């Protein structure tokens, strides 16, 4: 199809010319997605561990709730965060709305349940014996967690990559909390949405291709990393 050929050529042109505007958009995307994945990991992985490691009433219900949160629409999350950071709200004075920080906050909410549930599932596939072995060797809870983490590392890494993929490709939160302000909060996806709005489909698809190249590169890295270890 001529349309895709056009888009492909445009994408190539965009990349080859190292268009500064494109560069900035890509940098913003990577930065925002990177931080939100980082924060979601920092909260989500320990939460997953806590839930996996403790037996308590309502544990399965809590997991069900986390699973439900996987289906939270970006619009809802954006509105939720908006209600806290809009100027008139409690955190309004921090002036977060329409900044990259706002996107990061929203995206962290989006993927934090993904990372938590993936972590729980990865740990549940790790043999109970690893935990017992660490305990009998004298480990405390933290050291046990470290052992289990090492055994579950690929599962958790996969969760992180999937989450990164989710945020770098999402548009609702970036648009609504970031505002798609050129030079400030314009990401690959909001730029795509804008080009689409303008009817510039070729440019939109070209940007999409740039995004796919980035995420393919990340997955390839993971693939090689995992491959090297399992040889």
């Amino acid at each position, binding site marked *: 199809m001529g349309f895709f050929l056009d888009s492909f050529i445009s994408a190539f042109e965009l990349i080859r010319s190292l268009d500064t505007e494109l560069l900035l958009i890509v940098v913003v995307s990577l930065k925002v997605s990177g931080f939100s994945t980082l924060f979601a990991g920092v909260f989500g992985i320990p939460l997953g561990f806590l839930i996996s490691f403790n037996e308590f009433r309502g544990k399965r219900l809590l997991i069900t709730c986390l699973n439900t949160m996987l289906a939270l629409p970006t619009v809802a999350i954006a509105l939720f965060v908006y209600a806290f950071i809009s*100027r008139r709200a409690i955190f309004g004075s921090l002036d977060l709305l*329409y900044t990259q920080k706002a996107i990061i906050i929203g995206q962290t909410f989006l993927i934090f349940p993904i990372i938590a549930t993936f972590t729980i599932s990865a740990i549940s596939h790790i043999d109970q014996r690893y935990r017992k072995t660490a305990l009998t060797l004298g480990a405390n809870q933290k050291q046990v967690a470290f052992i289990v983490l090492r055994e579950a590392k690929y599962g958790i890494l996969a969760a992180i990559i999937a989450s990164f993929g989710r945020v770098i490709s999402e548009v609702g939160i970036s648009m609504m909390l970031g*505002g*798609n302000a050129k030079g400030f909060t314009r990401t690959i996806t909001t730029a795509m949405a*804008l080009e*689409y709005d*303008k*009817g510039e489909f070729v440019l939109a698809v070209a940007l999409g291709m740039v995004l796919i190249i980035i995420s393919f590169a990340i997955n390839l890295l993971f693939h090689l990393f995992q491959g090297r270890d399992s040889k």
Partner: protein
Amino acid sequence: AADKILSMSTTTSTQASGLLNILLPAFEKDTGIKVKVIAKGTGAAIRDGVDGNVDVIFVHAKSREEDFVKKGYGTKRYAVMHNDFVILGPANDPAKVKNSSSASSALKKIALNQSTFVSRGDDSGTHTKEQFLWKQTKLKMKTTTTTITKKGKKKSVSYSQPIGSWYNSIGQGMGKVLTYADEKQSYTMSDRGTYIKYKFGRKQKFDLTVLHEGDKALANPYGIIPINPKTHPHVKHKLAVQFAEWLVSARGQKLIDGYRLIGKQLFYPDAI
């Protein structure tokens, strides 16, 4: 440097038309002030002003803008420019709206012919104008009311539209409405700027043509309103006023007057 950044919510049409790409760099060159643009639907842009999320709003829904100022959210509405709306349709014009005497009579013909009409349906300036024109046709309207709760009080939100499945209310931005209408080869109403961009500014073909234009009722005025620092003390009111006054100054107005998209004038200055 952070102080030299002004946040502005505006409608997608000002951004998509490319006008801001001319105005903002010039403004920055003149004053050193950077403008951070948040483009969205008119309703959401006004909402940003109400919530104090931005310093200034630049929209096109005159009556709502005046209401906004009256309620104390903004200090003053500066009339910046206008363009106009056009009624578009397929070239073979099945409802024969060409040569209608007025915009509302054109719409009436579409309704009577049961030809498909695509509406923004998103409470935007364009949608507000379209609803106004439908009201003038004196056709029977269907009004839908939804009750919601705001600040603990019940409040109803209602809108009206002609009856019939030929009327497609799609609740999206202008560009998407044009794409939709083109796909369905149906009638629609658009601002001239977006239409020109779609018709002449892209590689893709666009088949709809202007079937009615020029009615006074189709005028589309844009206004800029700095947010009231009494309501939102944090806003950069000074910069906002500076920007608004720059826009209505001879320099700003000249730039607007001179802006051409594919050789066609899109906006007409209102302040000189």
